[in-house]
C-alpha cells in the first residue's frame, strides 16, 4: 500500500499548490475539502494490513469534520459577507506558485537530513507534510482576506495532521481528537468574527486601515 500512501501525499501537496494559485474563495474551500478527504483516507492506506477501530474512528472524524463541517461553515461565512474572490494578495498568484515550488524543493532538501523515530510507511510523508505546512503558512501570510487566511491555517493544520497520522502508532488518538476539536472551534469562531467585522465595517479584509476606521466612526 506504500504506493497509495505516496500518491495521497503527492496529491495533498498538489492540492495545497492549487489553493495557493486559486483566487476564487469557493473553489479554494472545495479544494480544501477534497484535500481533507484524501487525508481521511490515509489511515486506511497506512495500516492496510490491520485496520483497527482507531483508524476507522480517526478517518471518520476527519472526513466528517474537515471535509464536510468546516467547509460548510466557511461557505456560510462567505455567503454572509458576500465575498467571492481574493483580490490583492501581498504576493501575486503567479509568483506564489513559483515561490511555492521553491519552498517544496527546499523542504525536500532539508528533509534529507531529518530522521524520524521508527520506520515510517513511506519516506514521502515527512517532506510532504512539511511542504503542506509551509504552503499553508504562505497562504496565511500572503493573502489579505480573513477567510483565505483561515484556509491557509486549515491547510497548515492538514500538514500537521498528515504528519501525526503517520505517527499514530506512538501518538495517542486523544491528542489528535483534541486538535481536531480545536480546529473546529477556531473555524466556528472565525466565521462569527468575520461576520461581525463585516457588519461593523462593511469591509472584510483582515487589515482594517486606520483611515477607514476614522470614516466609520
Amino acid at each position, binding site marked *: 500500500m506504500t*504506493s497509495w500512501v505516496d*500518491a495521497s501525499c*503527492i496529491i495533498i501537496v498538489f492540492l495545497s*499548490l*492549487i489553493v495557493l*494559485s486559486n483566487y476564487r474563495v469557493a473553489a479554494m474551500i472545495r479544494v480544501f475539502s477534497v484535500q481533507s478527504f484524501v487525508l481521511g483516507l490515509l489511515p486506511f492506506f497506512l495500516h492496510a494490513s490491520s485496520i483497527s477501530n482507531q483508524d476507522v474512528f480517526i478517518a471518520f472524524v476527519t472526513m466528517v469534520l474537515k471535509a464536510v463541517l468546516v467547509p460548510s461553515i466557511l461557505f456560510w461565512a462567505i455567503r454572509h459577507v458576500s465575498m467571492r474572490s481574493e483580490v490583492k494578495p501581498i504576493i501575486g498568484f*503567479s509568483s506564489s506558485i513559483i515561490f511555492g515550488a521553491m519552498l517544496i524543493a527546499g523542504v525536500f*532538501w532539508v528533509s534529507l537530513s531529518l530522521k524520524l523515530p521508527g520506520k515510517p510507511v513511506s519516506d514521502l510523508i515527512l517532506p510532504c507534510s512539511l511542504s503542506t505546512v509551509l504552503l499553508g503558512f504562505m497562504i496565511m501570510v500572503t493573502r489579505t482576506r480573513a477567510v483565505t487566511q483561515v484556509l491557509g491555517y486549515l491547510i497548515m493544520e492538514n500538514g500537521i495532521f498528515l504528519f501525526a497520522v503517520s505517527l499514530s502508532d506512538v501518538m495517542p488518538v486523544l491528542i489528535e481528537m483534541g486538535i481536531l476539536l480545536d480546529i473546529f472551534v477556531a473555524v466556528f469562531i472565525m466565521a462569527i468574527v468575520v461576520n461581525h467585522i463585516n457588519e461593523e465595517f462593511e469591509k472584510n479584509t483582515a487589515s482594517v486601515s486606520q483611515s477607514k476606521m476614522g470614516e466609520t466612526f
Partner: protein
Amino acid sequence: MSIVFLILFHWLVVLLLAPFFIGVISKIKAFFAGKRGPSFFQPFFDLRRLFQKNSVYSRTTTWIFRSAPIVNLAAVLVLSLVVPLGFLKAPIQFSGDIFLAAYILGLARFFIICAALDTGSSFEGMGASREAFFSCLCELALFMNFITLSLLTHSISLSSMIGAGIPVSWKLMGPVLLLVAGSLFIVILAENCRIPVDDPDTHLELTMIHEVMILDHSGVDFGYMLYAAAIKLFVFVGILIPIIFPIQSGNPVADMLIFLGGTLGLSVTVGIVESTMARLRLNRVKNLLLLAFALAFFGFVVKMWRM
C-alpha cells in the same frame, strides 16, 4: 527501402486516426450538452469539404502567409515520426530527438505567428502575442517533464523515455510519474488550445489565442491548419498514453488495442474536461501553465530526492 515504408505507414496511421479523435471529443461535448452531436467522422467530412475549396488571400499578405499552413502540417508530420504510437515504433529515433520534437513544434508555431502578423490585422497580432507568451510557459513545463523523464530512464530519446523504462519506474517512482502525467495533461490542453486555455470552437475575441491566428486562412490552407491541429493533439496524446498505461504485451494486436483504448479514454477525458470546465479568464491562464510547471518541478524534486 524499409525505413521509407515504415515512415509512410506511420504517416498513414497518423493521418487516418488523428481526425477521428477530434470527432470523439466533439461527440462527448455534444453528449454533455444533451445533443446527439455530429458523427465521429465529421472531421474527415470537414477536411474533404475544405480541400475541395480554393484559398482566398488578402493583398497585404506575402509568401509567409501562404507557406505557414504547409510548414505547420509538415512540422507536425515530422514530429509524429519521433513519437512511438503504441504498436508502431517511432521510425526515427536518435539520442536527443526530444529537442527535435520540442523545436519542430517551435518552428510550426513561429510560422503561424509570423503568418498572423503578416496579415496586418491588429486582431491577429494580438492572438500572436498571446500565443507566443503562453507557449513560452508551456515549453517550460514541457521541458521540465522531459528532464524528469530522462532522469528516470537515463535517456534523451523520446522513444526510450516513454518506452520500456516506464513500468519499472511506476513501481519505484510512482509519485514522480503521477506528477509528470498531470503536468503533461495540462500541457496537452494548453498546446492544443483546448478549453481551460482556449476554445477551439468559438471566434470570440476576448480569450481566443490560437483560433484568432488562423482566421484569415481559408479553403485548403485552413484544412491544413485543422489537420495539423488534429495530428498535434494525437501526437501529444501518443506521448502521454505510454506514461499512463505502461503496458507492453509484445503482441502487436494487444498493444494496438491498448494504445487505441488509451487514446479513446484520454479523448473522452479531454471532452469531459471541456464540457465541465469554463474557459479561464485570459490573465489566469498563465497561473494554470505555471501550475503545470510547478507540478513538473515537484516531480523533478521528488526524483532527485529519491535517487
